[in-house]
């Protein structure tokens, strides 16, 4: 029950950000769903495997990359329309703000731990997207091989 509540919240937050950056109404619902899928895998990794924030964000971004690419192909829209709103529950914006707050409040040691978090999370998200892209490309190559193989074997028969 609590889990479902969090997912509804993530959906609404994603759609809210999508409205702010002017995503077309046709893509609003799907971008919300992509964001929810990313957060499901994030929470799932946290609950089932380990509570490591770098790995969690990597898995979340990987899911967003793959589901976003599928949504983009389904709607024939650029993939950025689905990825950027979906990223909002994961991005280290809150931590980036904490860094500057603690620097201004003269507590640099607290700020530094937040700097490390920002860098690690941003890196994990970017790597997750890169891996998703590689995965999709590999899938396309395999699909092409398979279809040519099937076509030639059909002709032989």
């Amino acid at each position, binding site marked *: 029950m609590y889990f479902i509540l*969090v997912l509804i*919240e*993530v959906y*609404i*937050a994603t*759609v*809210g*950000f999508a*409205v*702010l*950056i*002017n*995503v*077309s*109404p046709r893509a609003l619902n799907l971008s919300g769903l992509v964001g929810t899928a990313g957060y499901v895998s994030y929470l799932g990794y946290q609950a089932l495997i380990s509570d490591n924030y770098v790995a969690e964000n990597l898995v979340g971004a990987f899911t967003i990359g793959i589901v976003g690419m599928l949504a983009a192909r389904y709607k*024939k*829209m*650029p993939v*950025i*329309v689905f990825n*950027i709103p979906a*990223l*909002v*529950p994961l*991005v*280290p*914006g*809150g931590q*980036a*703000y*904490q*860094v*500057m*707050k603690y*620097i*201004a*409040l003269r507590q640099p040691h607290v700020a530094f731990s937040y700097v490390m978090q*920002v860098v690690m999370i*941003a*890196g994990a*998200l*970017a*790597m997750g*997207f*890169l891996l998703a892209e590689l995965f999709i490309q590999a899938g396309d190559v395999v699909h092409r091989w398979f279809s040519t193989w099937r076509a030639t074997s059909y002709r032989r028969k």
Partner: protein
Amino acid sequence: MNEPTLSIKEKNLLVQTCLLAGKILIENGSELNRVSDTIKRIAANAGVPNLRAYVTITGIMISIDDDDTVAKIAEIDQRDFDLRRIEVVNRLSRKFAAHQITLHRFYRMLQKIPYFGRYYQFWQRLLAAALLSGMISVIFTHDYGDFWLTSVVGMLGWLIYQGVRKRVTASFISEFVAATVIGMVAIMAVRLGLGHSADNIIIGAVMPLVPGVQITNAVRDLIYGNLISGPARGIEALICACALGFGVSLALIWLG
């Protein structure tokens, strides 16, 4: 290969089209890998495979590697997020690839893009900002008591951000002012007994303004090997975070 060779005039038009498409993509928050990809694809579809593009986040240079060389530069001053424009450029580029529109028509339609409006009314965006701040604060802190207050403060912050941005040309001032107001209102509201934790309210309320996506895009550009644009985008995001953080700290120092 019996590609029709283009006249100098058509080559000029092609370079201008590529420049305009790249400029619109960068101004509206696309990552640079996609921009150079789009430019190369437009050129290849027009029958000019030897087009050279040097794309950075503050300017684009394009030339055709030819005897009658044409080279052009576009500068990019402001960056924002407006995915409608990216979508339109993408759709036009696909139509051009499918030979549904000519190069002339492509260029004319690209010129119209900066005048495109928003899909959503102002109150809808205001509501979206309020929901975004409230929901993010609930997701991060699991505290349902502050939801309404965070929504209202976030909406106020976004309103002030938009208002200042429209009137003041200097960048980062709008973030600073909005963050100061958010901090002051949150602290006063907690003092009056309307909310529990000023820190949670502030984190939720600055969420529509924080440059989280820009930081992630910066790292993506870096990973793809854009060693000039990645750090530049990172610095931009850092200054934006600075403005927000200093604004809130100002409120914290004043009202303690």
